[in-house]
């Protein structure tokens, strides 16, 4: 199943409950604008390579559109459209004044030198700078991109439009970036995990957590959870998964990764297991924080965790989601679970426009407020209506976007 089809399943489930007509679903679903561009680059070896870039601007009823820029070989229009749509509901669920967008370039960044990545980024900006901007569409880091790409992005955009630090977020802290942006998605996941188990009357110290992925999301989620007294018993990255029943020393793991080019390989005092074993581990909370589509109808029956927090986008396929729902596994959906990133991107954008640096404690405090309020609203609605947390989140997202659309009008 293609990514867009999967997100539309969830959209339609909520729209069914809201009794929305086909015409209104169409209005809310079809992208505002979809762009495909050519990115020709002279590689280090003298070859001319032509890459394809995309930017999908899904909806701007609630504000300028916002969404990451992904560098990954699997990027195509369908995936970018799906992710742009998710951004529309996500920004609405956490109630920040943005619409949804997403972009990407179909490349494997690991096979390119920094010079090539810089050229690709600048060329992409050349192709789309006219249709983005601080009041229009604000890109951010995503899979395969980080603060460096955002710095190139900003520099190239400013060549056309002059000083515009708010044209992109996730910038280096030294270049109009916000403290706390890098950790934001993982921290948001951690805040939500804490909220959720508190709601269920559990104590962090008695909650065993497995986290798949130890990158921008997983490592910060692990750090926050360990600091909050959770027992993180399994972590993983491309080198494999690592398990310790008494809880892994996360600060040691972070140090180990820092000293080993970001890889966990050879992590001391842990048992090496496979990524599949991590997903099926006997834990209380499972946090898939790496790729989409890792929990499928094939492995869903073996998942033991009663709580899954979707830190990655779409880690559970719709078929597996239905099976988990039937088994009463509690799934905290991606459009809420990983919204910490876009929330602090919003804080970065606000600081850029205020020309005022909030500092890390205010960023963390405001993130805590936004995530907590959003969680409470989703939880309440799910309880009131007897629907899953995912359906509740979609209803809130669709409802807020729908309301803004109606108030603004289409004339």
């Amino acid at each position: 199943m293609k990514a867009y089809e999967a997100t539309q399943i969830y959209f339609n489930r909520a729209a069914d409950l809201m009794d929305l007509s086909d015409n209104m679903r169409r209005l809310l679903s079809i992208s505002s604008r979809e762009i495909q561009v050519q990115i020709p680059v002279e590689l280090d070896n003298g070859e001319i390579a032509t890459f394809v870039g995309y930017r999908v601007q899904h909806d701007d009823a609630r504000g300028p559109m916002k969404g990451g820029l992904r560098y990954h070989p699997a990027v195509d229009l369908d995936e970018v459209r799906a992710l742009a749509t998710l951004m529309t509901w996500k920004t609405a669920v956490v109630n920040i004044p943005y619409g949804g967008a997403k972009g990407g370039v179909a490349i494997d960044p690991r096979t390119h030198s920094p010079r090539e990545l810089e050229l690709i980024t600048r060329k992409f900006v050349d192709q789309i700078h006219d249709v983005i901007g601080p009041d229009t569409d604000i890109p951010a880091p995503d899979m395969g991109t980080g603060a460096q790409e955002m710095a190139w992005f900003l520099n190239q955009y400013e060549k056309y439009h002059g000083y515009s630090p708010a044209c992109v977020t996730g910038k280096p802290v030294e270049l109009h970036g916000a403290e706390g942006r890098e950790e934001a998605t993982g921290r948001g996941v951690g805040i939500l995990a804490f909220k959720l188990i508190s709601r269920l009357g559990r104590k962090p110290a008695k909650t065993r957590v497995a986290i798949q992925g130890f990158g921008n999301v997983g490592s910060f989620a692990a750090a926050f959870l360990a600091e909050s007294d959770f027992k993180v018993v399994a972590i993983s990255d491309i080198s494999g998964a690592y398990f310790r029943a008494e809880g892994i020393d996360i600060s040691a793991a972070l140090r180990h990764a820092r000293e080993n080019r970001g890889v966990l390989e050879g992590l001391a005092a842990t048992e090496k297991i496979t990524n599949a074993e991590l997903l099926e581990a006997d834990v209380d909370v499972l946090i898939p924080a790496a790729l989409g589509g890792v929990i499928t109808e094939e492995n869903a029956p073996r998942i033991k965790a009663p709580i899954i927090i979707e830190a990655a986008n779409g880690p559970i396929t719709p078929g597996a989601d239905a099976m988990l729902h039937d088994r009463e596994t509690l799934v905290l959906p991606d459009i809420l679970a990983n919204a910490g990133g876009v929330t602090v991107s919003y804080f970065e954008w606000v600081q850029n426009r205020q020309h005022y640096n909030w500092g890390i404690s205010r960023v963390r405090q405001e993130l805590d407020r936004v995530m907590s309020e959003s969680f409470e609203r989703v939880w309440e609605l799910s309880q009131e209506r007897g629907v899953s947390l995912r359906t509740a989140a979609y209803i809130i997202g669709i409802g807020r976007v729908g309301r803004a659309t109606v108030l603004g009008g289409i004339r």
Partner: protein
Amino acid sequence: MTNATVSCKRLLAVPLLANFTDEEAEQLLSIAESLDFQPGQIVLAEDEQSSNLWIVIDGTCEIVKESDQTGRQVVLSELRSNQHFGEMSFFHPAPHSASVRAKTPMKLLRIGRGDYEKLVTEQCASAFKLAFNAISGLAERLRRATDRLADLDSAEPLAKPPSEWSTFRTKVDAWNL
């Protein structure tokens, strides 16, 4: 089918002959023809053309129209004794917009346009009064039709179903997000 079957006195009870003197009624009767119809017989056929003014002396007839969509016949109304029909074609020749069919045994009085014109040429008061009375009736029907159109026009916004836009708004608002 003789004039003798309708008396002058009987004719004076017909509203179309309001303000007629006995003499004027006699004039009209002299050019009119009395006809009998059996139930189901067609007096006038839709889409055909004729120029006669008909007065119902006895019995009931139906105004029938073929429905465009289904071809089924729809009864628009009924006419009883002392009422008249055919005046539109009488004054302005055009195919009949509906058929007239006898519902019961009927006696009708037919005034042909050609015979009526003889009365006009002779400057008979009966010709003038008949035209005046027929026009009064037509004017009244035109006014009622105009009023109905005006009613339809003003009732339309109320009759319209709520727009998709406002329905959507109501549904979204109901979630109180």
